[in-house]
């Protein structure tokens, strides 16, 4: 177990390092100078040089990347002008554009994506597994086919189209909800849920499809297993067999996929955030990419990569815990 985790950690560190390096290099090659934006209107050449020096963009790429890495691992003392401040590891430096500590920027936005992801995940698991069970109770019937068709249709809908349609229906035509505007859970739980309802729904409806299929396939597979056949022979009701026993066969796979999806979503949902005006990591990422805000771009890439690796590890552990045949 511990060896497995250590191996994973080493592998993850290597992947993240390459990821950061590739991102850094790519954005460094972009036409455009972050110092010009930071310096403002009417900036003279010497002034621009001073700003480049202050940002550290006057150094070579390897030097910049190295200092980014060492800052991340060891922390760094930054000058604020009259004094200096210590930025402790993991320190991602300061944003070129807003001058904020990047670590803090990411931490400020993470709750939005955690709220978004957890609510959506709960909803898609409920909808996905529910629809799967609903359809598999009568396999091959019209009900099965319609459920599958609807789920497939929703699953292939672009999330921004679905979001737009939800907004039009709920906020403009029926006027049952106001335009979403993020309210932290700690501030007002009811408002938090009300404002996130549409985003949750948009993501959940699009994501549920995979879970419906997995549930359906898993249960069908289970129904052919010996112990389920035995239960059937004893005359247990079909509904009970499916929801209590057969579903267990599908659980390890469902848990694995859910862990991976959650990991990917936690690092930002650009389209959902954009459509519903949520101040999450995805929007920050696009903004930062547009202004070549390298510390922010790399910070988000690393965070996203780390979350994906974490989710992968969690998925493997979950799989092992739920499926006795798998050992790590």
């Amino acid at each position: 177990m511990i060896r497995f985790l250590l191996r994973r950690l080493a592998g993850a560190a290597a992947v993240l390092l390459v990821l950061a390096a590739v991102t850094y290099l790519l954005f460094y090659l972009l036409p455009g100078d972050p110092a010009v934006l930071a310096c403002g209107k009417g900036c003279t050449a010497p002034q621009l040089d001073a700003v480049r020096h202050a940002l550290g963009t006057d150094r070579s790429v390897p030097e910049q990347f190295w200092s980014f890495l060492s800052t991340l691992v060891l922390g760094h003392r930054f000058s604020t002008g009259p004094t200096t401040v210590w930025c402790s590891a993991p320190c991602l430096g300061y944003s070129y554009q807003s001058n904020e500590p990047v670590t803090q920027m990411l931490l400020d936005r993470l709750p939005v994506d955690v709220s978004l992801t957890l609510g959506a995940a709960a909803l898609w698991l409920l909808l996905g597994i529910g629809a799967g069970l609903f359809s598999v109770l009568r396999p091959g019937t019209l009900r099965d086919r319609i459920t599958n068709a609807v789920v497939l249709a929703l699953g292939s809908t672009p999330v921004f189209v679905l979001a737009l349609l939800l907004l039009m229906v709920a906020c403009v035509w029926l006027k049952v909800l106001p335009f979403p505007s993020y309210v932290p859970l700690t501030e007002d739980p009811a408002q938090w849920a009300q404002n996130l309802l549409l985003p949750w729904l948009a993501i959940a409806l699009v994501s549920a499809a995979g879970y419906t299929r997995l549930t359906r396939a898993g249960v069908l597979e289970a129904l052919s297993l010996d112990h389920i056949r035995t239960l059937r022979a004893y005359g247990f009701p079909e509904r009970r067999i499916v929801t209590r026993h057969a579903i267990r066969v599908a659980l390890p796979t469902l848990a694995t996929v859910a862990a991976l999806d959650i990991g990917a979503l936690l690092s930002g949902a650009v389209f959902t955030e954009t459509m519903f005006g949520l101040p999450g990591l995805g929007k920050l990422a696009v903004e930062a990419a547009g202004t070549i805000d390298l510390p922010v771009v790399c910070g988000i890439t690393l965070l996203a990569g780390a979350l994906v690796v974490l989710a992968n590890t969690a998925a493997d552990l979950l799989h092992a815990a739920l499926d006795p045949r798998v050992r790590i």
Partner: protein
Amino acid sequence: MTLTSTELGAAASPGRRPAGGAATTGWARLRARPAGRVALLTVGLLVLVALAAPLLSAVEGQDPNTFHDDLLDSATGGSPLGRFGGISADHWLGVEPTTGRDLFARLVYGARVSLGVAAGATAGQLLIGLLVGLAAGLGGRWADAVLSRVTDLALALPGLFFSIALLAVVPQSFPRPLLLGLILAGLGWAPTARIVRAEALVLREREYVAAAQLTGASTWRIARREILPGLVAPVATYTALALPGNMVAEAGLSFLGLGVKPPTPSWGQMLSGATTWFQVDPAYVLIPALTLLVCVLAFTGLGEALRVALDPKGARR
């Protein structure tokens, strides 16, 4: 922030993997299923619309890029005059707010970009995926180790970031639709490579391949003659489902303002312009939204039908 399937709603889940299969019987089975027929028909129609875009807009008598300022009310934000976004005998689907450009013409021309980029990207993914997957599967231990790590890295790349960066790095003079196709292909080949590698590893152990090796056939010849035919079914299935995913990805990038250059219309670009207008001019929003939806559904349905048709156990459903 990655272009993950969850985020974009791309139906790219691999599904059940059929082991080998004959394309011809699959085709027959596909046409035999009503859902498959409907999907096939819709896709055929869309391709036809895209090909005949100049003809269709000529029939309507409009051009996708001509402004009609006389059809707008400048005092109310440049919204179209008349009901339902200015729908009339001259403008079948109305006109675009603030420009007065004909929406029908833009829609049919938009099909060219949306379908073309998606098809090109899918073809690119297929090509790279096949080459990398075959090389990894048949090329020996070292090739496998290196290529598998490269594939892992490609899977972990933050797709949206890289698209944004690459779209900005490449000069504007480079044709944008081609660039979009290349970027989507370059960022999305990894799943195909994985599938191909896995299948190749299985097929390599088959007797007829071993027999071919004994006769002294080269690796390339074995790949071409013995392995590739066995890959048709799983790869075709995955590809059919990847195509709508690429279509959504293109629309997504255009939606964020990173797609084709104006004034070239694309569905994502139309949607992106329309989002602010949904309270005032719903037609402007619904037309591209529903078109994109129908198109993605048709391709997904086709992919799904193909998956079932190529599944040797397909009779089960």
